[in-house]
């Protein structure tokens, strides 16, 4: 080990991986509904695409998590965005492409995608 910078470089790289594990209260949470209906509507593809997008953009404060059926089966795949101290937003019919857009617009720029909202979030 030659320098602190070298150590910090290793740390930065390793932290990305550990981000999932060290998630705390203050982070942005994206919940993807993974009930049977969600899965059959393509929720898993959406989830994978969003995970990829988060990784690609190297977002440290966002965790993505799956949940059971969110109760709006007509609108699957469903994605809920929880930003600390903000109202939770529930999006419906989120395709992989729309999922990426949610990250780009809502998470990064704070623009809520009104046309994708399908109802009140429960939690």
């Amino acid at each position, binding site marked *: 080990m030659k320098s602190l910078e070298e150590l910090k470089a290793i740390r930065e790289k390793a932290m990305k991986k550990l981000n999932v*594990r060290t998630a705390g209260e203050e982070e942005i949470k994206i919940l993807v509904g993974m009930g049977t209906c969600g899965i059959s509507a393509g929720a898993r593809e959406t989830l994978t695409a969003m995970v990829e997008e988060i990784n690609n953009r190297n977002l440290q404060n966002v965790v993505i998590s799956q949940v059971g059926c969110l109760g709006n089966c007509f609108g699957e795949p469903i994605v809920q965005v929880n930003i600390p101290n903000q109202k939770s937003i529930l999006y419906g019919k989120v395709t992989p492409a729309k999922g990426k857009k949610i990250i780009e617009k809502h998470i990064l720029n704070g623009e809520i995608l009104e046309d994708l909202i399908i109802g009140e979030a429960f939690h």
Partner: protein
Amino acid sequence: MKNSRLHMLVCGGTGCESQDSNKLVNALNLVLDKYGYKDEVEVIKTGCFGFCEKGPIIKVQPDDIFYVEVKPKDAKRIVEEHVIKGRKVEDLLYNEPVKKEKVERQHDMSFYKKQVRIALRNCGLINPENIEEYIAVDGYLALGNVLTTMTPMEVIELVKESGLRGRGGGGFPTGYKWELTYQNKNDLKFIICNADEGDPGAFMDRSILEGDPHSVLEAMAIAGYAIGAEKGYIYIRAEYPLAIHRLNIAISQARELGLLGTRLFDTDFNFDIELKYGAGAFVCGEETALINSVEGGRGEPNAKPPFPAESGLWNRPSCVNNVETFANIPPIILKGPKWFSGIGTEKSKGTKVFALAGKVNNVGLVEVPMGTKLRDIIYEIGGGVRDNLKLKAVQTGGPSGGCITEEELDIPIDYDSLKSIGSMMGSGGMIVMDEKDCMVNISKFYLEFTEEESCGKCTPCRIGNKRLHEILTKITNGEGTEEDLERLVTLGDMIKDSSLCGLGQTSPNPVLSTLKHFREEYLEHVVNKNCPAGVCKGLSKKKPVNKQ
């Protein structure tokens, strides 16, 4: 690097491994593979979570779900439900014994709520066999900062200011110990890590070494820099194969990255670490005995002075610190001495790990701030006494500690308060006893241990403890007299006063403290030939008439 969306942290401590956590890891991977989720979910074997009572444990992140008592056969359900469908597996959640409700999240569990994890900070969080994970949680940053920005004396002053005291039992201020070794000029000095955890039931050092070995390596290098040593030894008992395995991996990884070896962080500082195996003799926890053992001699103590700081390993200035002490060092450096001294009591700073055991609902390793009340540890973290029986005593400090009674449960515990009530911190053993435990028998049990573990060097410990044990045996056989009780006190006091090392100086503690607090019970044994707890065979088993 592939970043999975789900991390399953499976406890890989010795306790959970013995409950098939290895098979569980394999089963999880197998099922994940079968369902095609291997790329999305990573299964990580971590260090001990401390809640050994309920092992094997899986924590799923980022969902923050804590599963307990997971069997390999549960792997399929966890994948099918939790991974695929995002549903918690309800019956694997922890059932809070007091409130009788299921708890999902670790920090909502009463076992963890009051804990403050500094020494155990990475246990259950990172994969101890992967140095990068340690680096991700700021590992080796303290070493880097120390080497590139601080002088040895500044490091020593910082540790002194933090108020950290030795966690192995003695409670000697760590910074001061470093300073003494620093002051003795010599071309060769040594840092020794005492990993000869010998107290029966105590396993905090093992857990740290298994779950976060790099924190100890890093701290040893920092200590080496502070005192002027380029070589460190970890004296570890050979009965800790998993800890040895992980230490060996950690040492070779650290060497590979140049975090051990020559010219660390491109400075003039060189440091390397070697393991030395002990045969698990209790007395080898005493630093001079430990040093004799490292040198290849018989593990028995020498008269102090000279202290190791003046003349230790191979007659060179040496500094011996315990595993848990070392584990506290990196955070102290990174977060500053004020942060550390802000936790704890006036004279005992930071946290202490206790091995909570005995007749308590939640058995395991708990780390709490100094000054926490025993009552909180037992009734909140520990979930109270098992089977709703009445608490009789708490034994702290291992076999040479003393017993604490119900009346003393609200004393904030630290080094000094424990000493003042006739017990000690020791390495952090904490055994809860209920009304079915016979205190005479308990003290006989402890003496049996110390009598056998005595190195046999000095007279009071070698013969005195034998005689104490004989008198206790006589009492538990119903042949004791009131005079024997006085004899126990006289002899016990003399052994404490005259023995050569800490083992003998504390071995009578269980007898003396139970005699003080439970004299009535002793009297029942010798006068009425009655063992109220019904433990001592051959004696009657009646509730004594309350004389109060």
